[in-house]
Structure formats: C-alpha cells, structure tokens
C-alpha cells in the first residue's frame, strides 16, 4: 500500500521522506511554508472576551452567568436543590471551597452503573474559547475522565475568566502540551444537540441535556 502511494507521488516531487518530521508550518505543494495569514492572536481586553464568551454560550441555549468566586458553592447548591438532585459527581482535584452542600458528593471511582444514575456532574475546565463559546476539558484536576462529564444528564462547569482565550489558534497552542502528553480532549459548545429531523434543533440527545457554565470574575 505504501509502495502504491509512493509510486502515485513519484514524478510530482513529493513522497519518500520529503516531508516527514518537518511539522508545523513547513511546506506546501510548491515547497513554500504554509502561509498562516489568518488571525493568530486576539488582543482584546479580558472583559471583552468574557462578555463575548457569555454571549456565545448563551446562544447555544446553555445557562451561563458571571459570578464571584465566593458564590460558587452556594450557587451550585441552589442549582442542585432546585432540581432535587440527591447525588452529584465531583471529580478529584475540584477545589474544596467550591463544593456544594446538600447532595451526596461522589468521586472519580464510581462504576458505570452508578455513573448512569447520578443526577449531575460539576467540573472545572482546561480553558475556554470566547468567539465560539467553547469549553475544553483535558482530564486535568477537577475534570476527571471523559465518561464523568458525558453520562450524567446535567453538567455544571466552572470557568475562571483568565482561562477564556480570544481565538481558536490560541486555544490549540495552549493545548499542545496536553495532547503531547497523551491526554484526551473534549471541546464542548453547548448541550448535546441534533438537527437531524427536518433540521429543527433539539437540545439534549446523548450527552448532558443541560449545560450550565459559571464564569468566575475578579
């Protein structure tokens, strides 16, 4: 198969080791570096980015609000009480001070069956992207393995305002280390959704049907 690919490329100046290992920004079909003239960095102030992030998350019909750090535990507790949650999943490394009182809090070690029966999950995130309203999980502290933020029907995610980046390229750059370290990434932009029936958007298919985001300001 490789031989077939090589013979297909022969005579076009490509193939047989021409490009391996050159990595980012190396060469295109003309042998020139891939020109990256798109926007690489967002120079806007934090407040502008936060405002945009909140607007975009809101457009996905996810709940989103800016809060003080000291309010988190109480807001989370209220959210649980309003929904009559009895069991909430809290991945390891989630800050002690942010844990809500009220529901029974379960850790990472739950089995699949238990996971399928908890009411919700509360996590931190690796970073967020303002112009697309995206949160990214990389399995770091307070986020847990991927199944934890997938199976429960309710996901409350805490984002610190300095984690909100102004562009997709900045996010991809920041995540390089996690990827190189073999960690899985999940980009989440609103609750799970489908438009498969007559293109009418329905929120909530298999992932959490309810996503809420708290942005911690200073």
């Amino acid at each position, binding site marked *: *198969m*490789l031989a*077939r*690919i090589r013979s297909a*490329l022969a005579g*076009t100046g*490509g*193939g047989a*080791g021409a*490009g*391996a*290992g*050159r*990595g*980012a*920004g*190396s060469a*295109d*079909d003309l042998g020139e570096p*891939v020109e*990256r*003239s*798109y*926007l690489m960095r967002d120079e806007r102030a934090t407040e502008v980015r936060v405002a945009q992030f909140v607007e975009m998350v809101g457009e996905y019909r996810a709940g989103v609000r800016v809060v003080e750090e000291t309010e988190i535990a109480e807001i989370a507790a209220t959210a649980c009480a309003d929904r009559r949650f009895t069991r909430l999943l809290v991945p390891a490394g989630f800050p002690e001070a942010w844990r809500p009182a009220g529901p029974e809090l379960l850790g990472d070690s739950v089995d*699949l069956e238990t996971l*399928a029966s908890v009411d919700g999950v509360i996590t931190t995130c690796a970073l967020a992207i303002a*112009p*697309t*309203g995206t949160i990214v999980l990389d*399995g770091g502290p307070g986020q847990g*393995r*991927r*199944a934890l933020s*997938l199976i429960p029907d309710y996901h409350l995610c805490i984002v610190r305002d300095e984690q909100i980046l102004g562009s997709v390229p900045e*996010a*991809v750059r920041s995540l390089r280390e996690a*990827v*190189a370290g*073999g*960690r*899985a*990434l*999940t*980009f989440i*932009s*609103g609750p*799970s*959704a*489908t*438009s*498969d*029936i*007559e*293109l*009418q958007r*329905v929120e*909530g*298919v*298999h*992932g959490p049907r309810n996503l809420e985001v708290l942005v911690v300001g200073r």
Partner: protein
Amino acid sequence: MSRLELPMVPFPDAAKVALEDSQLRRNLGKATSAIRAKRLALTAELPDWEQLREAGRRIKAQTMRNLDSYLLQLEERVTAAGGTVHWAEDGDEANRIVGELVRRTGSSEAIKVKSLTTDEIRLNDALADAGVQAIETDLAELIIQLAGEASSHILVPAIHKNRSEIRELFARTLGETGLSDDPADLTRAARKYLRQKFLSTTVGISGANFAVAETGTVCVVESEGNGRMCITLPRTLITVMGIEKLVPSWQDMEVFLQLLPRSSTGERMNPYTSFWTGVHQVDGPREFHLVLLDNGRSKVLANEVGREALHCIRCSACLNACPVYERTGGHAYGSVYPGPIGAVLTPQLRELARFESLPYASTLCGACFDACPVKINIPELLVHLRGQVVAARSERGGLRSSLDPERLAMRAAARVFASPRLYERAQRVSRVAQLPFVRRGRIESLPGYLRGWSATRDLRAVPKEFFREWWKKRHGDRQ
C-alpha cells in the same frame, strides 16, 4: 469491493425518479436553503475567513504531497501511544480486519459513530455476514438503518424524511407507539433506545474527521454525544480512516476547527469535538485499533489534477450550494459521496467507466467552489473528468464511437475554428441556414440531434453583420 459493483444507473435516469418525488424536493429545498443561510451568516463573521480557506487548501496539498511520510509518522505515534495500526488496501481487507478484531472481543454487537468511510466499504453488511450487529447511534443514521435505506446527504443523512414519516418508523421498529411527531419527542425515543446499548456494548467503531501525524491524535467531530459515547465507553475502539484524512501538525487543527463547523452545520463550533491519542491509562478504551484505508485513494493521488478531490473534509457545503443537488437529492448520485464533491470523487475512487455520467451532473456554475472551505476547484475537476470520459470513449473506439454525432460535430467545429477562411464561410452559411428557425430574432427550437438542447434554451439569431465583416469594412484587410 467486488460485491458492490452493480450496474450503475446513469445520473439523468436516477435524477428523473428523484425529481418526481415532490415530498423529497420539498424536504430538500427547505433543508439546503436553511443551511446555506446559516453558513453564509457565520462565515461572514470571521474577518480572516478567506485566509483560513487558503491555509486549509495549502495544508491539504502539503499533506497529499508527502502522504507516505506522514502516514508512517502517524503509525509510529499511534503505536507509541499504545494503539495498533492496520493497513487496508481495499474495503474487503478493511472489513476483514474489523470483523476479526470484533470477533476476538467475543461481542456480537458493536456501537457505531456515523462514518462515511465505513458506509463506503459497507462495513455493516460485512459485519452482519460475520454475525456481528452494527448499531448506528447517530439519530439520522439510526433512522435510515431502521428504515433499511441509504443516506442521501453527507451531514444529515435522513434529510429526505419528514417528522411524520419518522414517527411511523419508530412506532413500527422500536415499538414506540405513543409518540407525537415533535422532533424533541422523537429524539427522546432514540435516546432511550440507545442509552442501554452505550452502557453495555464492549466494542465501538468510528470513522475519523482528522488525524494528526505529528502526535498520533485522532479527532471526531459531532453534535449529539453519540460519538463521545462510542469512543469513550467501550473496552475496544476501532477507527476506520481514509488515508487522506491526515493533517501534518497539531497546529493545523486550529485551521480546520474553524473551517469545518461553520461550513458544515453553520455553527461557530459543533457541540462536541473529541481528540484522543492511542490508549490512556484510566480514560477511555483499553484497546485502540486504527485501520488506514486506501480503497482507491492512492489511484486518485496519482492524478495530479484529480488529487485535489482528496482534500475534502466532508463538510457538505458544496451539496447545499449546488442547484442540481438541491433538486435531485443524494440518491441519484449512486454513491455514499453525493453532490458536487461526489461527482468528482466517486468516479475517481471507483471506475470512471461505471460513473461516467457523474461529471456531467453539474451546470459548472461554481457555487460549490465558492462554498468549499478548502477551496477545491470542483468545476475544474468536473471538466477534467469530462475530458477523461471523452478520451476513454474514443479509446474504446469502434465504428459506433467514430460515428458518434457529438464527436463528429466537435471534430468539424475544431477544424472550422482553426481556420479563418473556414470560420468566415461557416458564419455566412449560418446566416442563411438559420432562416427557417428564426422567430422574432430568436431561435427557440432546432431540428434533429439539437432538439434536446434547444428544448430548454433559446438562442439569439445570428446577426446580419459579423464583427469580422464590420472590421474589414472599416479597416480593410489590416490585422
């Protein structure tokens, strides 16, 4: 793939059937115009959209030129991260590999993420032959699997079915009789049916939207969360990926993560995008197999012009932009890759002779080229393939081909256009010959072989005086 090579219905005949289905045309018209409007609004939002498209094009061209090296790099990185890489020359080999991998797990079921690549090789049928039931988990894929039909759109495979048809289908196949035809209600029924499958099935099968050679990372882009379920929960994950889905570096993802969702669903970002690298100690499957599929791709790669079709990231923007697709739907293209990109990809991946009507399934209006996020020049590829069709026909030769009226006419035209003397004489002849057909300065119908052409077109009559005559009158014979 030998089992697939059924006689191909030519596009015009297949299209005629589709065009008579008024429900299909209504569904399609509504859907394609809605996605077109969303795509336009969201691509206009990015000031650097054109720069992103150009970067996407260049990255893909670079990938193709060095595909051998990047594939080896990918294999090395995936293996280093605890995954296993398999190479499959064609669909049969890929199906055998996947079937054997599933058999080894002892499972008789596999949950599947929507994947065009596995549709291309008919993996589900092959697994069924091997005693394994493949369960489609994307809502639209589930709908068409339950209906026993084929996909008609890359992105929204059940675009041809409306809500009441789906309600009837669920009542019949899932025993869900109390449903309304509200899409939210129908979606809930699918969630309930699939949830147990997600939690209990030990094998997941996916395609891949991208794979990063530099890091060995595989990417799946989706909306519903069924993808996350299939790639996270089972003990064994098998991913089947066409060799053209590679990108060289992790940084390249910053381009495609912006291009794909906006072009595809008209969203700033799709709800879920997952990246994984081999096997992780505590997170996700314990076993990961990546099947690299050729199945005609290296043949396409050998054609320096046609190769551009491999740049496709399967967003489906060209389908939604195409006036032909909007009216005929996807089934008329006779392939899992419909629409403009299908018209250039299918004949190349398979045999041109069996799909020679597809390069003509276009008006060459160029809307697909404008919509393509990686700037694939589809009209140019269509013309290139039309040239190959004509060349292949005359090569097949024989008396019939040399007496083919179109060919004779083109030959005559070529001679006339090559000589000023013949050209001027033809002009003078046409001025007289047209007389029986001209009505009020227009020619509305032509005789014989040209009747079909003039059935939908009016020609302006040949003028009283040609430019060359006018020029000579003013300037004499000076050039």
